[in-house]
C-alpha cells in the first residue's frame, strides 16, 4: 500500500486546490495539468489523485458536478468552493511562511 508521505499529501492538497482555483477541471485533466506545472519533481501516480479529491470534497473545500463534455460524454468536474478559497489562501500563506523560513535556514548554512 503506497500512500504518499504526509508532506507530499499535504502538498498535493494545496496544489490541487490551487489548480482548481484557476478553473474547474475533471480528474484526468487535473492530472495532466499537475504534470505540466510540477514537471517531474512531484511523482504522483494518476490514481492517488482520487482519494485526495474525495477527501477535499468531503471536507467541503471543493465541489463536484457531472457536466457534459465533447462526444456526448460526461465527466465529473471539480471546482473550488468559497470555503476552499479561504482555506487555500490560509494554507498558501502558511506554506510561504514555512518555505521562506526553511530556505532562509538553508541559505545560512551555505554561507
Amino acid at each position, binding site marked *: 500500500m503506497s500512500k504518499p508521505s504526509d508532506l507530499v499529501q499535504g502538498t498535493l492538497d494545496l496544489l490541487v486546490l490551487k489548480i482548481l482555483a484557476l478553473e474547474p477541471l475533471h480528474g*484526468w485533466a487535473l492530472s495532466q495539468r499537475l504534470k505540466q506545472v510540477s514537471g517531474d519533481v512531484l511523482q504522483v501516480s494518476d*490514481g*492517488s489523485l482520487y482519494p485526495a479529491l474525495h*477527501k477535499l470534497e468531503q471536507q*467541503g473545500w471543493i465541489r463536484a458536478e457531472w457536466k457534459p463534455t465533447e462526444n456526448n460524454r460526461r465527466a465529473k468536474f471539480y471546482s473550488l468552493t468559497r*470555503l476552499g478559497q479561504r482555506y487555500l489562501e490560509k494554507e498558501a500563506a502558511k506554506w510561504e511562511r514555512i518555505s521562506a523560513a526553511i530556505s532562509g535556514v538553508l541559505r545560512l548554512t551555505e554561507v
Partner: protein
Amino acid sequence: MRLEHWIYTIPLRLRALFHRNRLDSELDEELRDHVDRQIEFNLAGGMSPDEARLIALRKLGNAALLRDQTRAMWNWNGLEQFIHDLRIGIRTLRRTPGFSLTAILVMALGIGANVALFTVVRSVLLKPLPYSDPGRLALVYEADVHGQHPAPWLPVDAGSFWVWQRSMKSLAQMALVSPFQEYNVSGEGGKLPEVVEAAWCTNNFFSLLGVQPMLGRSFTPNDDKPGAPPAAMITANFWKRRYASDPAIVGKTIWLDARPYTIIGVLPPTFVYSGAFGGAADQIWTPVRHEASASLLHTYGDHEFLAIARLAPGVSLPTLAASVDALQKQIESAHPEPAVHPGAIGRTMLDDAVQNYKTPLYALLGATGCVLLIACMNFAGLLVARAASRSKEFAIRVALGGGRMRLIRGRMIESLLLSAAGAALGLLLAWAALEWLIHARPDMNRVEAIRFDGVAAAFTLAVIVLCALFSGIISAFSSGRGNVLAGLQESSRAHSGGRSRALLRRLLLTAEVGLTVVLLVGAGLLLKSFHHLRSSDLGVPVDNVLTLHFGLPGTRYKQDEQKFAFFDQLLARVRALPGVSSAGLVSAAPGEGWNGDDLMSIVEHPPLGKGQGLDFMLRGADPGYFSAIGLPILKGRTFNQDERGKRANVVLISRGAAEQYFPGEDPIGKHVKTIDEGGVWTIIGVVGDVRWNVSKPPNPTLYWPIYGNGYSFGTIVVRSSHDVDLMAIPIQKVVAQLDTDLPVSNVMTLREAIGKNTIDSEFDSILVLVFAVIALVLASAGLYGVLAYLVTQRFVELGIRLALGAQRGALLSQLLLDGVKPAMAGLLIGLPASAAAVRLIRSMLYETEPLDPVVFGAVAGLLSFVAIAACLGPAWYASHLDPMQALRTE
C-alpha cells in the same frame, strides 16, 4: 465559519449516508472516464490500441486498492465497516442455530431475572415515596426499652402525641394516623354491604404529606373535632369500584357503621399510605378527633396511633428523635398511669414502609446476580469453545491480511448480538415476572410502585454491554495469542492449543460451580425454614375449619342484650346447618392476627412496679369455642351459658401463661386484674397454646366470655367433616337473614390463614430455589460441554490408546475424574463462601441455623451427583470408542 462549514458538508454527509450505492457507481464511472481519456491521449500519441490501454491502466495503479482508499475518505466509513461486521456476525450466528439459541436462552435467563429484580428493588426500596419532598418525612414511635416486644417500634398513644405536636413545632409538623380501622359500609342502591379497611387521621395529615384531593376538598379543623358533621374522604380506587367514578360524588352520603357521612373528597389514584403497620389497603379516611372516643384521645396508656413528622428545614431526624425521646421521658414521669412508655425513636417514612422487605429483596437480587454471573461464564465458555472450533478460520483470515483488531471486533460484535438478543427475550421474561409478582404479592408494601422505567432500561443496556464485554473479552483472549502458522497447522492430532482453551473453560466452570453451591445452600436453608413454618403447630387441628369475621355497628346494637341475641341466634342457626359438625365464636381465630393484648397483674401475687404487668393476649370466646376448634381444656372447665354480661368475670388461660406466670402453682381459682381499670377475673381453666401467627411463637393468652367484656365483633369458627369451603355461602346467608346490612369479611380456612402468614417465606424460598436450579442446570451443562469438547479433541489419542490395549474401565474412570475435577474445586470454594454468605440471610430463617449441616451435606451430595451424571455421558462414549473409527477421523 463553523456554520458555513456545516452548511457545505451536511448535504455531503447525508449523501454519503443514504446514497452509498450511487457514490460507488459514480466513483466507478469517474475512474473509467479517467482511463478512457488516458487511452485516447495515448492513441493520439501514436500507440497501438493494446499498448495504449495497458499503459493507461498501469499509470492508474491498482484499481481495487484505489477504490478502497477513496472510499476510506468518505464519511461514515467506520459505521459502514461496523454494519458490515454486524451482517457477517448475524450470518455466522444463523449458520449455527443450536449454539446461538443456547447462548441466547442462557443470557435471557440471566438478564431477565436481573432486570426484574433490579426493577423491584429500585421501585420498592429506592424510589422516593409519592409525596412532596418525601425525604423530610419520618415516623416517630414510642420505644420498647424493656425488650418485651418483638420489635422496639411501638405505636403511639394520643395523650403523648398532642404534647409532642405542641412542643416540637419548631422542629417538625406532626400528624396522627391510625391506619388499622375498618368500617361496615352499608348496602345502598342495590350495592352489597362490605367491610372496608380505613384510617383515622388528623386534619393536617394530607397537607403534611403534600397530597391534594383529586375531587372535593381535604379535611379542615372544623371536620376534625367531636360533634362536627361527619365527613369522609375516599380513595380513587374505592370511588371507581363502588361509585363507578361518579363525577358528582362530592357531597353524597356514605353509611359507615350505620351512620351517615358526607363524602368531602376523593384522593388521587397515586395516593397510598404504606407503613410497617399496614394501611396500603385503606380506602376510607375519616378525621380522628371526630371518630375516636374521648378517653382514647386523651389516654397515655392506649397505643392505637402512628405519628408522622415532616422535619423543618435544617432539622435532622436524629435531632427530632432525641428531642421527642427526652420529652417522652418527662411525660412518663409526670403520668403515674401504667403502660406509659419511657422513650421514643424515629425512622424515615421510606424505611418504615420497606424495612421488612430489605433483606429478602437484596438477598434475591444477590441470587439473580449470581445467576447472571453464571450465565455469563457459561456464555463465555460457549464462545471459547466456538473460537476453538473456528481457530483455523481465524488463522486463514489473518494470513489473508485481516487486521487482528478487526477480527476481535467481529467477535465482540457476535457476543454483543447474542447478549442483545438474550436481553430482548430476557425483557419479556422480566415483564412476565413483574406481572406475576404484582399479582402474587398484593400484601407487599409499595408493590403498586413497581414500574419498568428509564433507569431500569439503562440498567438493562448496561447489563447487555457488560455481559458482551466480559464474555467477548474472555473468548477473544482465549485465541488471540496463537501465531498464525500454529493455527493453520493445528490438527486434531496436535491438541495442545485445544487444551489451553479447555483450561480457561475449567476455571470458569470452577467459579460457576462455586456460585451454584452458594445459591443451593441459600435455597436449601430457606426451604427448610419454610418447611418448618408450614409444619409448625398452630395449636389446633387445621383441616376443614372455616372462619368468617363480622362486626356489629354500635349504632344499631347499643345494648349488650342486642349483641347477645345476635350471637345466640347466629350460633344456633350455623350449628343447625347441614354439614356443620361444630361451630364457635371467638374474637380472633388462631393465625388471624395480633388482635390486642393488655398488661395484667395477679391479685394473689406481690404487686409489681409501676407500669409493670404481665402481658396477655386477649380473646373473647363463647362456651362452645374450645371444643369447636379442638383446643383441649387441660384443667378446669369452660364458661357456663349464664356467665355473660355482668357475670362474665371468669377466664381461661393458656398453658404458656400458666407455666410462665404461675410456676409451680395451680392457677385455678386465682384472680387477675388489668393494671389500669381494676376489673377482677377468676381463672377457671387452662387450655392449650395457639399461635396468632404461625411464624411467631405462641403468646400467653387469656380467654374471657365474648358475651360481655365489650365485644361487638367476632369470628365464626366452623368445623366440618369435609369440604368446609362449601359452607361459606350458607353461613353468609344466615348472617344476611339476621341483618341484611351486615357484611362478612376474612372468609378463609385455617389452611389459607397459615398460607397468608407464610407467604413471605414461601415466596423467597421458591424464588431462590428456582434461581439455584437454573444455576445447577447451567453449571452441569458447562461440565458436560467441556468434557465432551475435550473428548472430541482427543479422539485420535484415545483411539491409539485403546488400540494399544488400554483398559476401558480405567479410561472411563480417568476421564470421569478429569471432568468432575472443576466441580470438586468449585465445591471446595463454594462451601466456605456459602458459610459466609448465609449470615446475611439469618433474619429470613425460621428455626433453622445458618450453618445447618444437613443442608450443606445435601448440597455437596447433590452437586457431586449432578457433576458425575453430567460427565458420565461423554466419558462413557469416549471409553467405548471403536479404535479403528477414531484413528480414521483425520
